[in-house]
């Protein structure tokens, strides 16, 4: 998820978002993953945010971290990411299903057995037919953002995308209510299918949920239920009286009795409320000029966690001057990633990088050729001499370059940095700062012939292809489309071949596939379709009374596992 999520959803997060599954969170030098048992049940957890989650409240449409963080404890999927902090939080565990099935038929068939006795918050018992109803609804509502890219692999999915009204998935999902089983038939092996059904788009809803956008999340099977969703005021969840724990790993009981998120407070006001104990947690990233104060006076309430995300500027490899490999490599060598880290908030909040995959991610192996004294895999300093040599050899000096970014403070500052750098390298650079609402689609559309564009990407789920194939695969470049995440328009046939081989191997041998992905990461980095800047960290600021803070790589702060009693 990037701009899709990042600036819809995580736009709210301001600077950052997702985590890196690197061993939990690190608050100053301490672990921030406190035990859940540190707190007691009861009380009201009050959080504050600038505004409501972007887009629809419908769980099959919403694509924001802000809502997903709450949906995970009101709803369940067949499988789930383990609900704990640290790297364990990236592991899939069975949730509504009794176990995680081994795919058969070359990775094309998954047969799940559904647990018995689980009830929705409206009192209805969960049945296998609800599973099919949920996936049919996902297509029928017609607005689910990933219906056509993630779930169309289900047999009949493509037809459902084309004509949602007549969608039935009769071949793709076979239900047996008598034996409590659900069988998925896919059109091809998909090593990430289980990841995709563990996110809120695929959380199971009761049969009869309207096949149109709803204005409050419908009943789910989790320990909480939604009782209010007013985008001008607040979201509110209370305990689901029908919930009983069936798997502590997948869906543990929550601690607070009531969870509320109020809207309409600026970042400054959010910090002040948390400092004063008027709120328990601020959703948005704290303003930069309050960090020092928080760091000094409220250090015990601050948690800093690495994210599996990357901030980058994409070159357009099909448009001059950056259709020239030496020019791209030259800019990479010249980039002072420490300066960019400073703009973001300093070395405690971001780590310089040269490659595509973030640390502690499947397939990650540290690699940085664009630094002084390369070899260690880490970026240390820019190499201006090498940069100038490459750019001179490229013959691209003097070219006009538009540096495209959005108008938010930090991102505009990145753009300004590159305008200065490119001018220094001999280009004629100018800033093109567009509204955050249009900047990402603008950069994606090849009609606009962007040259150098800011973007960022946060994991949807822990799989190397979610970065490499989604952002730099040949199929991810869709000419003249606003939905073409391959901004660089990069398509290298031999590298694509490596990606396809890794995807195929991932169906049966995920570990072996990750070795292949590491090679892909290196090969792509050598082609320099981006200037990868840094991997960000996330700052959580909680009130004094919050105990049991846990940070999941997948879901960030596990709100329901904290205690306010």
């Amino acid at each position, binding site marked *: 998820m990037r701009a899709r999520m990042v600036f819809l959803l995580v736009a709210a997060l301001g600077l950052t978002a997702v985590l890196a599954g690197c061993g939990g969170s690190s608050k100053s030098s301490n672990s921030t993953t406190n035990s859940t048992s540190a707190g007691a049940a009861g009380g009201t957890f009050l959080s504050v945010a600038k505004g409501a989650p972007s887009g629809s409240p419908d769980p099959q449409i919403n694509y924001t971290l802000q809502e997903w963080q709450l949906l995970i404890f009101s709803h369940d999927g067949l499988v789930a990411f383990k609900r704990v902090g640290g790297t364990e939080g990236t592991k899939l565990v069975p949730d509504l299903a009794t176990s995680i099935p081994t795919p058969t038929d070359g990775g094309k068939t998954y047969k799940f057995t559904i647990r018995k006795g689980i009830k929705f918050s409206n009192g209805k018992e969960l049945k296998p037919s609800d599973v099919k109803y949920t996936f049919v609804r996902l297509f029928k509502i017609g607005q689910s953002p990933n219906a056509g890219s993630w779930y169309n692999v289900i047999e009949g999915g493509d037809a459902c995308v084309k004509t949602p009204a007549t969608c039935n998935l009769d071949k793709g999902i076979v239900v047996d209510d008598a034996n409590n089983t659900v069988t998925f038939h896919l059109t091809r092996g998909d090593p990430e299918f289980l990841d995709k059904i563990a996110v809120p788009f695929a959380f199971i809803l009761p049969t009869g949920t309207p096949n149109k956008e709803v204005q409050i999340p419908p009943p789910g099977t989790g320990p909480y239920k939604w009782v209010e969703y007013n985008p001008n005021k607040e979201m509110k969840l209370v305990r689901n009286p029908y919930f009983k724990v069936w798997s502590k790993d997948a869906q543990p009981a929550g601690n607070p009795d009531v969870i509320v998120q109020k809207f309409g407070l600026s970042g400054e006001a959010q910090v002040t409320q948390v400092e004063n104990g008027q709120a328990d947690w601020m959703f948005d990233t704290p303003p930069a*000029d309050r960090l020092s104060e928080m*760091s000094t006076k409220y*250090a015990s309430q601050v948690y800093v966690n690495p994210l599996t995300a990357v901030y980058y500027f994409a070159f357009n490899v099909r448009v001059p001057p950056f259709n020239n490999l030496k020019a791209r490599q030259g800019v990479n060598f010249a980039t002072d990633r420490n300066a960019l880290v*400073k*703009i973001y908030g300093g070395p405690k909040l971001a780590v310089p990088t040269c490659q595509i995959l973030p640390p502690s991610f499947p397939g990650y192996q540290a690699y940085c050729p664009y630094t002084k004294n390369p070899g260690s895999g880490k970026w240390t300093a820019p190499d201006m001499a090498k940069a100038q040599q490459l750019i001179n050899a490229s013959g691209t000096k003097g070219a006009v370059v538009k540096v495209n970014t959005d108008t938010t403070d930090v991102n505009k*500052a990145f753009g300004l*940095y590159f305008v200065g750098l490119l001018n220094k390298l001999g280009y004629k650079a100018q800033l093109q700062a567009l*509204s955050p609402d249009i900047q990402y689609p603008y950069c994606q559309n090849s009609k606009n012939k962007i040259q150098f564009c800011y973007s960022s990407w946060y994991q949807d789920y822990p799989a190397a292809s979610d970065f490499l194939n989604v952002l730099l695969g040949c199929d991810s470049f869709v000419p003249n489309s606003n939905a073409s995440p391959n901004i660089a328009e990069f398509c290298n046939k031999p590298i694509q071949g490596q990606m396809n081989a890794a995807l195929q191997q991932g169906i049966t041998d995920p570990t072996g596939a990750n070795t292949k992905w590491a090679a892909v990461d290196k090969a792509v980095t050598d082609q320099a379709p981006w200037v990868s800047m840094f991997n960000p960290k996330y700052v959580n600021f909680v009130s004094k009374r919050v105990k049991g803070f846990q940070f999941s790589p997948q879901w960030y702060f596990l709100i329901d596992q904290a205690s306010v009693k």
Partner: protein
Amino acid sequence: MTVFEPEAEIATLDTEEVGGEVVGRSPWELAGRRFLRNKLAIAAGVLFVLIIAVSLAAPLYAKHVADTDPFVSNLSGTFTQNGKTIQVIQQGGGKLGLGETPVGPTWHAKYFLGADSQGRDVAARVLYGGRASLLIGIGSAVLASLLAVVFALIAGFFGGWTDNLLSRLMDLIWAFPVYLLAISLATVLLTAPNGLKIGFVHVSPGSLWIPLVIIGIVYVPYIFRPIRGQVLSLREREFVESAIAQGASNRRLVFSEILPNVAPTVIVLMPLIIATTILTEAALSYLSIGVQAPQASWGTIVEDGQGLLYTRPWVAIAPGIMIVLTVLALNVLGDGLRDALDPRSKLRTKG
């Protein structure tokens, strides 16, 4: 107790004895004399000229005093003060060391007012910002005045459907709240990725001409209306009718009879319009739809400083002070000019 004797005062201003002969003075001489007696207005004029002068000296300050390029990021830079090497951007303190803070005011040549979040010298940027703010403020006021005077002369002199057409056009512009109209135009023109193309004219997205023209246009009706009223009135005056009777051409009537009589009104309005356009420019730039980065204006610097209000308030305060001083000087100057040029204000010269 001083007794004010208006007739005697007017007589003193209007005439002078030269070699025993009483010589009359032109209205412009009279206005000059009245203005020179207004010490506050002179002080305001001096202050305004001083602000222009220091703004024009921005490149000299940046090169020879601050030794910096205020348009280029200096995030990893250092400077020396009292033998100590100081980081321009400093890592946050406390137990966690979060955040990066630009250096605060040093009150020395380098980083006199500190640095902004890009590590650029705030003092140098404030001076450069003055150049852009004053250029746009004065330029748009001149543009608005020129257009307004031309339209008002045409509408007031020819009357009839010409007057109706131009007056309704001005009413149309006037009907929009000025900031709303300016913001709408600026949003469309400045965010157009490839700038503005009208025929062979191409204005790049970051050009200062865009805010200058936008602000100039939105203030045309505010000058047009009083001038048009004056032209309508002058058109019926005896000296104009006398000129018509003598066979004067329309051109002569407009340029020799009417224009000189509306000029004082324009001059009186000018400082007040400049003050208003400077404020408008600051507002637009603050909203990121005026002067575009990396260029600076006082409005953009206030915007830059907004995120640093808690730790480095001078980044926002310094351009704020410059805006206040400039607008104050222009308003006082405008009052002084009005007192000097408006014949009906003669009785106020003493007061």
